[in-house]
């Protein structure tokens, strides 16, 4: 389970997205005589606003039945919390730094950290992370010719 919000809150979020979409779409050019590139983004933005109103109105009636924001149980559960942080931060770090650090640093860190966060013993996690990295690299880099970045290991590249 993850963060659960009252429909009023999700309605406000959907509405905010709609307003953002509409605001940006204001700058899209018009083409005289035919529907231009602004039409569909505006329709989508307007659609989000309509749904937002429906969600807020629907949620308002039951606002006492459900709390505004329901923090899940795992929030106070260090193991689960750590696992979520590892997944989100691990992927973000990989996306940002894999080109500089290289696949051989990012991949074992991502896998190893998540294994440990999911209560796998460190003695098991380290070899699993290393073997997984080697196998995936062999399949995708050597087998399928995906240009996985070498980063710091550039001079060892094959």
């Amino acid at each position: 389970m993850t963060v659960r919000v009252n429909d009023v809150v999700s309605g406000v979020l959907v509405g905010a997205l709609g307003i953002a979409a509409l605001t940006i779409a204001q700058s899209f050019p018009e083409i005289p005589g035919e529907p231009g590139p602004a039409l569909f983004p505006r329709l989508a933005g307007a659609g989000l606003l309509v749904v937002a109103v429906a969600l807020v109105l629907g949620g308002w009636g039951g606002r006492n039945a459900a709390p505004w924001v329901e923090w899940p149980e795992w929030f106070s559960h260090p193991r689960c919390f750590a696992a979520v942080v590892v997944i989100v931060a691990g992927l973000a770090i990989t996306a940002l730094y894999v080109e500089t650090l290289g696949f051989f640093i990012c991949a074992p860190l991502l896998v190893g950290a998540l294994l440990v966060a999911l209560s796998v013993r460190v003695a098991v996690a380290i070899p699993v992370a290393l073997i997984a990295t080697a196998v995936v690299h062999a399949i995708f880099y050597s087998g399928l010719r995906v240009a996985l970045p070498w980063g710091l290991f550039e001079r060892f590249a094959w």
Partner: protein
Amino acid sequence: MDPVHTAFALVFDPYVLVVILASAFYGLFIGAIPGLTATMATALLVPVTFFMPPIPAVAAIVTATAMAIFSGDIPGALMRIPGTPASAAYADEAYAMTKKGQAELVLGAGLVFSVIGGLIGTTILVFAAPSLAEVALKFSSFEYFWLVVLGLTCAIFIASDNLAKGFASLTLGLLVATVGMENPAAYPRYTFDRPELAGGITLIPMLVGLFAVSEILRFAVSTAPTLKLEQDRFGSIFRGQWKLLKQYPMATVRGSLLGTAVGALPGAGADIAAWISYAVSKKFSKTPEKFGTGHVEGIVESGAANNSALSGAWIPALVFGIPGDSITAIAIGVLYLKNMNPGPTIFMENPQNIYAVFIVFFIAQLLMLPLGWIAIKTYKQVLKVPRNVLMPLILLFCTVGAFAINNSVFDIGVMLAFGVLGWLLEANRFPVAPVILGAVLGHMLEENFITSMIKADGNVWSFFERPIAGTLGVVTLLVWMVPIVLRLSRKGRVAHG
């Protein structure tokens, strides 16, 4: 050589056969592990199929999904935990049968009627798709516009219990589709000056995020108890199946037909087919009071329905490029990557490819009998694979897969963003399937609308002037009226009563 012979030659190639066999085991494994779904199996396959010729690529998806939908029944029957959402409708019933000592019967029924449902669904696909394609050849942008609108409408009306949330998901998907320069005016929209966004948000990383990363997040925070089997040794699972078939011929056929039809409707896939079929089975049963106590009838019918739905979903996907479920939404992405663009012309220009896909469908169903038997017999071993080791490996695979499509780290970010989004949407009961349909069909909707408007010189009535377009348009508008009418009649009833 005529196309049918060419198709057989394409499929009965050692490379293709090995791909089919490997994806069969892969699909059985993914489906049998709770928390890993058939859609996730497909999303994870894409990066690998990316590097294959078209026929083995499609064969891998078709085989893996058919197997996964069946093997999802196994944990349902043995642990009361459905392996994939498509088995959720009857997991309680199946578990009750195991409790009564009928594990062999229920597992065998899951297998045999999955195969029968799959075969019937595939037969309908083989006959319906080419004849629909002939009709579709005459379609212009007006007909396509309405078809897409009708498809998107179905996605909201069938796939979600809350119309507002279904509509929100769909609109979100349509907004995603507007990103980039791929619009009739080639104007960069919502690109924020990032070159990576000029081509739009890449579909595959988005799907891997929505269907795989979100599942990993869900697993990470689950405090579910360890998996324990109710029974781990089985006698003959095929004993008594012939008797079941003779006892419930109507249920088998009804489930398969209904499943194919539900599968063909955009937005509704195997899971919804199973729920509807189970309810229908109970309604028409001579012994509805037995449902819920460990009665096999509903499992026969809905087990056939969820496998036939898989084939049904390919009908609109191949003929119109409109996916019938989330799996075919991904498959359509693969078809485009392979220059096997779906649409009626593929039936005329490359019939051998279409026939090859049909042959693969039949092989996958028949292969399910022996391999499914092995999956049941070895299930105890399958469960020994620790999920907390498996999930990090899947995450690594997702990451490399997302990167591989464009060799772009930006796509890892896209995958992460949609993974978190999918996780939040699901927890807050927003359906995910309409997001995908909106994102896949957004371009088609816009392109056909703009083309039609230019052709019609801005006259909206031309959308209703051609007979098929007019009919589709009126049907769509009528479907939109349904909730309003229902609401008014409910209010009227309250006012009078």
